């Protein structure tokens, strides 16, 4: 009887833990996105040069690689994630200042922002409701990331417009697949740390927004 009770209690506990991770992740993600938007506005108000974007991205990547893994299991991890997302938001402000100077800049930014929201909510909703496990995409997603990083490194020096556009399209698709994978990981207990989950989803949203902004900036507003 005792053993029977345990078998019922364990999945219930596991479901509770999963729900807690999902709830905490989306709450922290909302807070970091809001903070990021405030930092972007600060950066735009200060009219930061485009160089600020590169410095912010480098700083955020270094924090993500070296500091976040050491702090993600403690409360200081929350401070680190706000620092990373704040830096990225600040850098983003410099890019948005550039886009605002274009003829269709405000419309492009608004469309990219709305589009990113629809893509993220749509894919997350699909992964949460379809009951499918997208963990099988792990190999594809991480191998794709390696290919994209090599292409990005090459294009830092080559600066080919076509390659830049191809990278944006590739990153957008890859990050879309990553949202399916990461959401599935949270649902199936593969990701139990909500700080890492937030970081992953934030990076996916950030990359989709930047890529969409570039794609719309190139193709949009030809009239």
């Amino acid at each position, binding site marked *: 009887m005792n053993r029977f009770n345990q078998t019922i209690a364990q999945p219930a506990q596991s479901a509770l833990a999963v729900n807690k991770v999902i709830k905490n992740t989306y709450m922290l993600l909302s807070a970091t996105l809001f903070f990021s938007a405030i930092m972007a506005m600060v950066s735009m108000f200060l009219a930061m040069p485009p160089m600020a974007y*590169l410095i912010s991205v*480098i700083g955020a990547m270094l924090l993500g690689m070296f500091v976040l893994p050491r702090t993600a299991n403690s409360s200081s991890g929350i401070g680190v994630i706000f620092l990373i997302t704040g830096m990225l938001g600040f850098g983003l402000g410099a890019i948005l200042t550039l886009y605002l100077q274009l003829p269709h800049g405000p419309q492009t930014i608004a469309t990219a922002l709305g589009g990113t929201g629809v893509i993220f909510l749509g894919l997350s909703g699909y992964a949460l409701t379809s009951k499918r496990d997208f*963990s099988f995409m792990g190999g594809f997603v991480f191998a794709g990331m*390696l290919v994209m990083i090599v292409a990005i490194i090459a294009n830092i020096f080559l*600066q080919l417009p076509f390659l830049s556009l191809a990278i944006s399209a590739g990153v957008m698709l890859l990050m879309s697949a990553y949202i399916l994978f990461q959401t599935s990981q949270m649902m199936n207990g593969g990701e139990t740390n909500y700080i890492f989950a937030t970081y992953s989803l934030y990076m996916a949203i950030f990359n989709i927004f930047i890529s969409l902004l570039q794609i719309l900036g190139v193709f*949009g507003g030809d009239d």
Partner: protein
Amino acid sequence: MDNIWLQIALAATMGMMLFFLYPRAKQWMQNGPKAEQGDWMAAVIPLLAVVGFVLLLIMLV
């Protein structure tokens, strides 16, 4: 991207990222769960929807 030192710093950071991601990618490719029948189709459909949505946005802007 005029500053060559910033370009080098960015490339070096991306290189480090590559170094960090490689073991994870290798592990997922070798030991990750394999797709079952219909799994890829279930993943490709929303990704195609994203492509269609982006094309729609391009036409709207």
